[in-house]
């Protein structure tokens, strides 16, 4: 890309510039110039910082290996990213109302947030659910709840992402059962299941069973979907939560990819053809505050994944090489103080996701450090995406930052850092081993602590927190509250379901499930039979506990 004469001339000019700049360097606007992840950023990037000779191999073209510039040939010119707001609260009926509101206002995909009892496999009337029902997402106990959530929504016409992990198979079974009732064939069903248990042990910490049986549930689901639900993304291999727990960008990238490769190896060991299941694996990354670091991260992600799929796992189908991803703006970057500032933070983070080539995007609401999003706040968040899409021009061309000396240098750097972590994880025996030994959790906790210390030493300024503070501010925005009656309603509803259903059928389907789980049966298939007769999620999860065991985490600080 750059011939020797050009590079020599550049080196000369750089030297001259450097000497001139030296007289200005005593004055510093800030103590340090580091990314959110703590990486030093140079004053200036020039052609000397990029590997010009490698443009065709390393940067290339969108829709072509190694996909640094994007996974599709035409990217947003062909189709804008999906505007998919993660959403769910209180009762299924309340959630359904919010979904209709979002769809009416231009959202192009659904995304379900479940409450903690559901995430952990407990029914709403379980003693452990006390005080938690409907508080951070929608409560789902049985198929009846799913039917209410999607009331008036044709599952053949929308794509739905469901953020659920430990009991993910149960929720997918319920979604499919709703589709069945609507008369929509499985091969028309589109969506994504988060279903990424490894990152639970590492970061989000919502588990039921230990790693091995949990991975089995996932490979069962993958096999079932490959055959029966071919448009469904079986896993959303996630870095978002790892980042929210405090990791650096390179850790987010590396740990996520390592998790992905673990699932790929498990499915291949299970006898599944990589080219059959890999095209339906998807990813989920954070859009944190360091604008360029994030863009570099997404570009490096695509390149690393493509290379390993092609060279290590010998995938032949080009669609197996594509790292398609959803992005969510960083929840941990939002402040409770001066919450309106969060609108700005979210907008800038969303922009980095778009410039990084995301397939799907969720923008946080300004009030999420205080509560679940109010209607007003989520509308602004959705409009943020629409403004970016239609008013800024950034989606007119593909990967506009390619060729930037800074962005290409950063892409290379984060790629190298992530590869080093991938090698280290491999050296230590793989993700599950690293989880057992607390390696990944410790790396994350250390990064989180370092970040907090930077803020307290004012090496890192957060507006409204350690500078531009307003002591006497009044929070002047509507705050959503989940009423305590939600819990009573849900508990009563599930009791009613249990009373009115055919309990013989429930018993039989649970027995079949345990048989399948003990042997080599497909657990998702068995769960589908269970949910059709209104077996509850808690009952299904409980049935598997004696067979799979329950995970307990040794606390690591």
């Amino acid at each position, binding site marked *: 890309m750059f011939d020797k004469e050009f590079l020599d001339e550049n080196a000369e000019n750089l030297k001259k510039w450097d000497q001139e700049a030296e007289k200005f360097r005593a004055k510093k606007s800030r103590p340090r110039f580091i990314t959110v992840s703590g990486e030093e950023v140079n004053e200036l990037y020039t052609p000397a910082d990029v590997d010009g000779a490698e443009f065709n191999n390393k940067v290339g073209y969108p829709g072509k290996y190694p996909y640094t510039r994007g996974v599709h040939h035409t990217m947003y010119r062909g189709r804008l990213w999906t505007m998919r707001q993660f959403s769910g609260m209180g009762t299924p009926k309340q959630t359904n109302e919010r979904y209709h509101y979002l769809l009416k206002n231009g959202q192009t995909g659904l995304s379900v947030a479940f409450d903690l009892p559901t995430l952990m496999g*407990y029914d709403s009337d379980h003693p452990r659910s006390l005080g938690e029902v409907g508080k951070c997402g929608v409560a789902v106990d049985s198929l009846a709840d799913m039917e209410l959530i999607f009331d008036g929504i044709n599952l053949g016409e929308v794509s739905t992402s469901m953020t659920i992990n430990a009991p993910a198979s149960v929720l997918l079974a319920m979604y499919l059962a709703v589709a069945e009732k609507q008369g929509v064939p499985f091969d028309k069903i589109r969506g994504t299941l988060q279903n990424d248990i490894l990152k639970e042990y590492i970061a989000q910490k919502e588990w039921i069973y230990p790693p091995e049986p949990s991975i089995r549930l996932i490979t069962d689901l993958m096999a079932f979907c490959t055959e029966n639900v071919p448009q469904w993304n079986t896993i959303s291999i996630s870095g978002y939560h790892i980042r929210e727990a405090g990791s650096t960008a390179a850790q987010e990238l590396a740990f996520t990819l390592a998790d992905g490769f673990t699932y790929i190896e498990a499915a291949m060991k299970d006898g599944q053809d990589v080219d059959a299941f890999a095209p339906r694996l998807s990813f989920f990354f954070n859009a944190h505050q360091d604008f360029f670091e994030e863009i570099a991260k997404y570009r490096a992600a695509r390149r690393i994944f493509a290379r390993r799929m092609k060279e290590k796992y010998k995938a032949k189908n080009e669609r197996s090489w594509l790292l398609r991803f959803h992005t969510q703006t960083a929840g941990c970057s939002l402040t409770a103080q001066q919450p309106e500032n969060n609108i700005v933070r979210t907008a800038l983070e969303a922009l980095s996701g778009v410039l990084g080539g995301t397939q799907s995007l969720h923008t946080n609401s300004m009030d999420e450090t205080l509560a679940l999003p109010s209607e007003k706040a989520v509308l602004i968040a959705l409009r943020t995406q629409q403004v970016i899409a239609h008013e800024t021009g950034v989606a007119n061309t593909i990967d506009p930052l390619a060729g930037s000396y800074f962005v290409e240098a950063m892409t290379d750097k984060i790629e190298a850092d992530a590869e080093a972590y991938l090698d280290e994880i491999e050296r230590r025996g793989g993700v599950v081993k690293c989880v057992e030994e607390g390696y990944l959790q410790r790396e994350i906790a250390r990064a989180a602590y370092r970040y907090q210390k930077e803020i307290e030493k004012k090496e890192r300024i957060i507006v409204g927190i350690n500078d531009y503070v307003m002591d006497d501010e009044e929070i002047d925005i509507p705050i959503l509250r989940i009423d305590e009656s939600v819990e009573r309603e849900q508990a009563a509803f599930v009791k009613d379901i249990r009373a009115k259903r055919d309990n013989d059928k429930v018993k039989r389907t649970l027995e079949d499930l345990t048989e399948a789980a003990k042997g080599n049966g497909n657990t998702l298939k068995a769960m589908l039979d269970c949910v059709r007769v209104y077996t509850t999620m808690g009952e299904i999860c409980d049935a598997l506990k004696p067979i799979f065991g329950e995970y307990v985490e040794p606390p690591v*600080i």
Partner: protein
Amino acid sequence: MSEKIRVLLAKPGLDGHDRGVKVIAAAFRDAGFEVIYTGLRQTPDMIVNAAIQEDVDVIGVSILSGAHMTLFPAILDLLKEKKADNIILFGGGIIPDEDIVELEKKGVDKLFTPGTSTDETIEYVKKTVAERKKDEKIM
């Protein structure tokens, strides 16, 4: 001779978000406190029993899930029941201002919200434990 301040840090209920409690744990440890972290998914019963067993001065509870109006009062009730209410109970998380007022009235000593520095929490613990020990000497 000054004794180390003993703190039990706990995550009650189902909430699994432990970034905050771990940062507090590391900061407290660096500040010279004796820190016992219970880990996740503790019931109020488990927390209070551990606090008594470990003979701590302070219990710090982290709740981001919205279940604070159920879990804090449950811990307070158990501390009273087991005659351990000389142990200072404080916490942090996602807790609306009105709820903070109510919980502090019920007996939670202090609730911190997002944006609090670890230094502030360390100073708070030192000061509160010193005052409590002074009160106990007088009593």
